[in-house]
């Protein structure tokens, strides 16, 4: 027993010695709440690594991307030690500048492979190389107003498919004289509903190898058809990010669908509606179908030009691959962890007062393992811009069927990217 304790003590001592051996300053680039969340894990990091000074710089989302590209184009000049990147945009970096970031397998990234859901890795790896570690994710759920649903006699537990959702929407219209809709779809500003529904149906702009355009395949057609059905039934409103928030504040919509990071947006924009909200799983396209998708999420990478990669790696690991780091960010800033062991933390099971004391994180995080993978590829922004226009045209009646619209989208995306249309 004593020998064992001694051995443990020796090991701990060894670990401590290694930890204190890491020194110097590391700079971290991030944005908004994400930057604040990283800031929040610095104290616990410094308890383990007292000699590493972490400087988190909040540049704003677009600036991080723009300066990152510029830095990579300039051969790695002026880049930080830890770089935040959105999953969807990440592949531009690995594809255009394969030498700009550190291959993290050399630092031990492969040992973390199983700790994150597979869909989070798709955009962060190229061949055998791992360029970034998954951070937060955006499991899609429906946020709903308990009071409005109740008034219209809708039971959210009975909404299992999109057809159920539309039927519920008709009830809602009837009960409120057409004043309250079931959600807000961006039309012309974005195509996020299409992306969520397509992902649910295991379809996306591109295949998971990133080698072909697949936006006109059956799962995507079904997704666009559902959007059309929702629009034709008149159960949804239209509007971009700002309108969506306005409608929520004005109680003009009874629900919203987004990545779970939207939780904080609702909570902070409508504090007076506390206790009235709840969460349920997104409806499936048919009975028994998948009720999970992902929208958004980010990762951390280490530029190859970093002078202190060991310290940067220690920080990345502490922030993203420990329950302590991930739960801190969830608690304080609502960043949804993708680190699977964090799902067992007691905080996840805690009822949330704003959400009518529903333990929403348990429900939300429970979908992580069911999300079909999807690849943004380096052409994500272009495909999104095209799809946004095609969706708006389709809803305006420019195409006869969803298939026809998506065939047109596939042709345009193929032209813009040079990738063939998949069979």
């Amino acid at each position, binding site marked *: 027993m004593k020998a064992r304790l001694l051995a443990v003590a020796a090991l701990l001592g060894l670990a401590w010695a290694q930890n204190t051996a890491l020194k110097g300053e590391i700079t971290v680039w991030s944005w908004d709440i994400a930057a604040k969340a990283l800031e929040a894990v610095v104290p616990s990091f410094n308890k383990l690594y007292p000699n590493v000074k972490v400087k988190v710089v909040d540049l704003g989302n677009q600036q991080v991307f723009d300066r990152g590209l510029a830095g990579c184009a300039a051969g790695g000049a002026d880049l930080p030690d830890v770089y935040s990147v959105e999953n969807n945009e990440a592949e531009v970096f690995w594809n255009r500048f394969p030498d700009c970031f550190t291959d993290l397998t050399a630092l031990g990234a492969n040992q973390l492979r199983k700790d994150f859901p597979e869909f989070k890795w798709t955009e962060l790896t190229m061949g055998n190389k791992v360029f970034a570690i998954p951070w937060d994710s955006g499991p899609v759920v429906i946020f709903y107003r308990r009071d409005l649903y109740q008034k219209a006699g809708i039971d959210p537990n009975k909404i299992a498919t999109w057809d159920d959702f539309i039927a519920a929407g008709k009830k809602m219209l009837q009960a409120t004289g057409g004043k309250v809709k079931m959600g807000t779809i961006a039309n012309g*500003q974005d195509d996020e509903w299409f992306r969520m529904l397509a992902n649910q149906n295991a379809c996306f702009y591109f295949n998971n190898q990133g080698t072909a355009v697949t936006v006109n395949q059956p799962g995507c057609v079904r997704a666009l058809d559902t959007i059309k059905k929702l629009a034709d039934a008149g159960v949804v409103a239209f*509007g*971009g990010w700002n*309108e969506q928030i306005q409608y929520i504040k004005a109680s003009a919509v009874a629900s919203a669908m987004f990545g779970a990071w939207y939780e904080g947006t609702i909570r902070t924009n409508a504090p007076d509606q506390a206790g009235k909200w709840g969460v349920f799983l997104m409806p499936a396209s048919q009975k028994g179908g998948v009720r999970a998708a992902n929208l958004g999420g980010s990762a951390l990478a280490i530029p190859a030009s970093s002078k202190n990669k060991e310290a940067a790696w220690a920080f990345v690991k502490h922030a993203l691959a420990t329950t302590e780091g991930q739960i801190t960010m969830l608690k304080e800033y609502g960043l949804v962890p993708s680190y699977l062991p964090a799902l067992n933390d007691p905080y996840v099971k805690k009822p949330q007062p704003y959400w009518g004391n529903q333990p929403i994180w348990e429900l939300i995080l429970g979908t992580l393992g069911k999300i079909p993978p999807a690849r943004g590829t380096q052409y994500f922004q272009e495909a999104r811009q*095209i799809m946004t226009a095609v969706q708006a045209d389709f809803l305006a009646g420019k195409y006869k069927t969803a298939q026809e619209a998506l065939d047109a989208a596939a042709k*345009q995306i193929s032209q*813009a990217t*040079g990738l063939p249309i998949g069979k």
Partner: protein
Amino acid sequence: MRTKAPFFFLAPYLFLFALFWAWPILYSFYLSFLNTRVYPWHLEPAVNWGRLLQDPFFWVALKNTLFILAVQVPLMLALALLLALALNSALLRLKGFYRFAFFAPVVVGAVAYSAVFRLLFNTEFGAVNALLRALGHPGYDWLYTPGPAMAVIVLALTWRWTGYNAIILLAGLQSIPRELYEAASLDGAGPWHQFWHVTLPGLRPVLVFALVLSIIGTLQLFTEPFLITGGGPGNATMTLGVYLYQQGFRSFNFGYASAIAYTVALLAAGFSFLQMRLWRER
């Protein structure tokens, strides 16, 4: 030896010109024939120029740009001419002050004034909608509906550049010899006739100059749509300049962005040539 001396004095300038002007201009022409969507870049002449013809977004951007050209430029120049005539009038006091006041918008930073326009045209809290509501009109969702968004861009451009053009035209007005007006009034020409037969012909070279400047400025238009509407909603206010930026610095497709840039340059050259021909001194 004597003949070479000037080149030594010019050398710093020539060096900078070659490095920061000539080289990028030539290099981007070369880039427009490369496929820059892949690593490493390689020569594939049809990829960008071929795409240009079939790319619906490029046509939308071109259409928006030409719309602004056809609507905003004549509107602005007409206003500028009226302003210049007023500023030149013998009846006006405090001329210096007015000249400064109308020129001032150009001095204001584009980012600052764009932010102010965003606030003015904010749907819920903007001054413009507050005024409309006071007049009994529900107001517009200015920045998020296509037509009104374009109207905001046109208004912003007009606000910023009318005074600038008015000052140019004013200089032109002042260079028209007084004797011409004297002679005209002796011949019995009224103010309207004088404007039509003395002022306008005398102003022609300056007008052409202002027109060409405005057309080139509009073809390159980027700041206002980028900062005020972000090219949106959808692509409703996306100009060639904004699309070029998106392709170059968001999608990092320098080849295609260069092809767009060269198209803009060709259009500008074509328009200017046409102007000169149409308005040539007879």
